[in-house]
């Protein structure tokens, strides 16, 4: 592949991930060595992105008379709707519920919203579990000493978990 330049069609297929894994890897390697093909690939990428954004932005415009009629009906319904919700019997409980929901949402979400992170140990544990599922030579009865989901345990892992992480931990697993 490195001595043979791919056709534009194949580059387009590569952009859209339509090639087999072997062909895909071969083109990836070729682009690393061939500036000419790399440039063509980059151009195809830009073209694809432009087409996608154009498609997303594309919309059909309704005749202005129809739009005016639609908006007029929406506004009349909104007015009726707000009158209904502004009745004290409805408005007071709704306001209280919204305030409570906002309070608890801020309490529970603010740390995570500020610093969303995933524990590295979570990745190790899930990978280890996947190994048990997928490796035919794994001892499937071996436990996955995992505690990342349970916050109580996560902050307080057991000595066994610590020891297992320090040692192999998966018996005949790997």
């Amino acid at each position, binding site marked *: 592949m490195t001595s043979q330049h791919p056709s534009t069609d194949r580059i387009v297929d590569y952009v859209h991930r339509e090639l087999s894994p072997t062909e895909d890897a071969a083109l990836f390697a070729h682009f690393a060595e061939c500036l000419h093909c790399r440039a063509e690939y980059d151009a195809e990428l830009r073209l694809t992105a432009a087409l996608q954004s154009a498609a997303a932005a594309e919309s059909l415009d309704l005749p202005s008379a129809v739009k005016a009629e639609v908006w007029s009906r929406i506004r009349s319904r909104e007015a009726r709707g707000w009158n209904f919700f502004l009745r004290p019997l409805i408005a007071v409980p709704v306001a209280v519920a919204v305030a409570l929901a906002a309070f608890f949402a801020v309490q529970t979400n603010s740390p995570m919203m500020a610093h969303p992170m995933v524990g590295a140990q979570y990745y190790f544990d899930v990978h280890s579990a996947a190994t048990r599922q997928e*490796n035919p030579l794994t001892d499937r009865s071996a436990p996955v000493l995992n505690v*990342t989901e349970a916050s109580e345990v996560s902050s307080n892992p057991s000595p066994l978990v610590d020891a297992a992480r320090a040692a192999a931990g998966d018996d005949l697993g790997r």
Partner: protein
Amino acid sequence: MISAVRLSIAVLALAIASVPAPAAPNPAPTPTPSAERAAQDMLRACIDAPKIVSYIGEIQTTRWGPNGASAMLARIEHEAPDRTRRLYVAPESAYGDYVVTIGTTSYEFDTKRNRIVETQNPVLSSQVALNDNFALLIANYRPVLGPNDMVAGRQAATVSLVNKFTGLRAMRIWIDRQTKLILAKETYRPNGAVATRVRFDDIRYTNEIPPGLFATSPPSGYTIVLGYRFSTLSTDIDKTTHSAGFEVLGPRFLPDGFSILSADISDLNGIRTLHLVYSDGIRMVSLFENASGAAADFGSARPVGTRFANHDAQYVKQGPTTLLAWRDRGLSFALVGDLDLSELVAIGASVAP
């Protein structure tokens, strides 16, 4: 006269024939098709052995890092097909703790904190996937029968798994000749160094295991804590990636023999994370990605900075497993596997649109 000449020629021929031939270089063992087939059958049998045989024993696990080693010792009771208890006796910090595994559920008895951590892992409910993965292993690794050996007083056959692309031995297992149970296993790094060793120090086959050993009801004063629920991995990669909710990127390069096996999506603390699993039958690589901007939190570990393909990345090692994390195009990536860092970097650098 003629007969004397014939006699001389015959003597000379005998003399030449009796001269030993120059020693041939010692070739790498190439199994005959029948020997390779026998090794494959042995492997296949050892995968199913725990479903058939029950035993009591003691098992030692050692893992070698770059500068040292660590080990665990456990007594093990296994009742076929799927009930196992491991009672840890070393290191001291884990002494007395035990784990009961019944089917897909593990109950970790933390005797120091009087609690039980219940973990679900839907392991291997799929025999089809198991068969596929075994086929992948055989496609990439040549099983080579070695000399017989003794492990825990049992006659064992040895099988090495040699990578067909690199010619390197990745794993060696000792299989009980009678029961086909794996009695020992070693994995190797690319330079030949031993990475892990698991070995029965003692084993006794028996069907008379007291059922009370597998009891999971909490002792008095114990609390039950729910551990992680591992999701079932799907082999429908397209369906899973399309439901990720973001533009998924995958690697353009994988080491020889690797292919994608499965995928799943999890929502950890509201962070929707796609998990792609790649394997060559023995070695596994997991690629995690999310569009929530949620980077890897290394906690008390000390990650090392590195740079590839214009990305500032970090990696941390846990025994033979390495985690490499970076960000690109609004996605946060974590690549985890028992591969060399250079291989992980090559895979990571190829994660591109």
